[in-house]
């Protein structure tokens, strides 16, 4: 594993009124790593991620994403990252091709590059038949795959995935993770939040957040040894209940 660090977080905090959603979290993510960001509902995962992708200002602490500061260089961060939310935000009333063109366009890709990327994406996902169908008419699993591919359109250094596989069958989830591996092999860093503990096993390293704090951070193997469990599920339950 290469030792180049692409996300550096030190004491990052987000306070809403008198509620501390994220409490002085610190961690590093290396280039090309699949970093699992785990935690129960309301543990502060999404809040922490929003600070890293530059759509929420931190209350204190520091963070550096792809070499840019989250306070002052959010627009530079946005050029270097991809993002896919749990609501997989493609336009339902645009076709697959139109979505690709629009997002390619606002990332500033050239016309040629867009049509090149668009053809490649459609071919890889086997979407030839539905390329001109409205996204709204496609099954959820397909939408998620397309959304993921769209988030990679501008060749970002890091991709942030916020619960990308919610609500789909195990086969589709499996296929989705194959896509994630492929992107990671190409050198893209993957920062992913999930509820599925089997998915946590696929990650290179995972952090587990409880009530705004990171309670554990290591490889799945080490975590299991440390907590004396045979599955990540057990590790998660032990941490979340303590």
């Amino acid at each position, binding site marked *: 594993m290469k030792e180049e660090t692409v996300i550096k977080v030190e004491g990052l905090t987000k306070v809403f009124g008198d509620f501390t959603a994220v409490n002085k979290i610190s961690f590093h993510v290396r280039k090309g790593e699949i970093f699992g960001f785990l935690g129960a509902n309301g543990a502060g995962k999404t809040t922490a991620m929003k600070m890293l*992708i*530059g*759509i*929420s*200002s931190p209350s204190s602490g520091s963070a550096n994403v792809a070499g840019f500061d989250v306070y002052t260089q*959010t*627009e*530079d961060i*946005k*050029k270097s*990252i991809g*993002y896919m*939310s749990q*609501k997989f*935000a*493609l*336009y*339902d*009333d*645009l076709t697959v091709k*139109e979505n690709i*063109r*629009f*997002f390619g*366009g*606002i*990332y*500033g890709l050239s016309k040629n590059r867009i049509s090149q990327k668009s053809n490649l994406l459609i071919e890889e996902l086997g979407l030839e038949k539905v390329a001109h169908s409205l996204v709204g008419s496609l099954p959820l699993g397909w939408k998620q795959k397309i959304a993921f591919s769209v988030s990679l359109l501008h060749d970002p250094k890091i991709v942030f995935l916020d619960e990308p596989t919610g609500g789909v069958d195990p086969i589709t989830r499996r296929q989705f993770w194959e896509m994630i591996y492929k992107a990671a092999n190409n050198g893209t860093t993957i920062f992913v939040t999930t509820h599925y503990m089997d998915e946590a096993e696929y990650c290179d390293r995972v952090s587990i957040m409880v009530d705004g704090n990171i309670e554990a951070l290591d490889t799945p193997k080490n975590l299991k040894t440390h907590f004396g469990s045979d599955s990540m599920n057990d590790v998660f339950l032990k941490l979340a209940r303590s």
Partner: protein
Amino acid sequence: MRVILYIIDKEFRQIFRNKGMLPIIFILPLLQLVILSNAATYEINNISFGYVDNDHTHTSRALIDKFRASTFFDVFQVFPHPKESDLAMLQGEVDVVLTIPEHFERDLWKDKNIDLGVTINAIDGAAAGVENVYITQIIKTFNKNLSVDMVQLSNNTVRPVLIEGIPLFWYNKTLNYKTFMVPGILVLLVTMITLFLSGMNIVREKEMGTLEQINVTPIKKHHFIIGKLFPFWVIGMGLLTIGLVMAKLIFATPMLGSLALMYFYTSIYILVILGMGLFISNFTDTQQQAMFIAWFFVVIFILMSGLFTPIESMPKWAQFLTEFNPIKYFVEIMRMVMLKGSGLTDILPQLVKTALYAVIMNAMAVWSYKKIT
């Protein structure tokens, strides 16, 4: 610049793909123009008229006939006694009751002062005022004819001097209310459609979650806003065009001024409304909220625009508030250019204020759109 084109392209596709919205955007406003221009009139017609004739003479019947001949009055009811007429008024069967006193004819010939009883249902004060004018006019003409008759009969050398004002109505010579209303209604439909569309647009993306996706892209705020507004600006201009054509074809509304000036002013005016819509959009979380707020402003703007009630008769503080009402300026300009043929120098004050308004509103829209929370 290229980024803006991609946004405009996307917005147009979405608008024209929405088969439910298209008729709302283009057909409803035109129905509005046709219906409102015909229905919204200050003229009061079909006044239900009743009378109590205590005189029963040739002259009293002649007076009633005058009312019968008028096109404003309808439904003639005779009441033998004021009690019945009062009851009918209470039940809303009549709007106006004329009571002719006993010895009306005799007193008239004797040149005595006569008091005719006129009772008007004044729940709608403005209508009552107009009805009063109609009634007074009829009675006056009747009295004048009568005195002329009397003069001729008595062979008197002293002729009564009748002084009469002959009003001259400029710019709308026939006092055609449609000519007056059509430009105003046109303003309404251009304003309402563009405000509602732009007001709900960004909120809709918030609701769908696509705005968050936009916010994690390196898109520039003003690129996004310009891209978002331009399609609605085009729609607004399109509506003006369709509206002007319909005004000409259906209502034969005159267009005395320059069409180019009209378009120039409207192009700036729509920017004010779009900026306002986006501003609302930025401060609301659901389309419902945005709709209510937009509606709140539209109602105030319309009622205080001088479209239905003259601004001159509003209280001073309200007159001051109308300075901040963009619809007021547009109504003024529309009427000035279409009916009076005003030129650029005539409308310069309104033009400058509107342009200033547009700059402020859009600066606020861009400022209040935050990619970072």
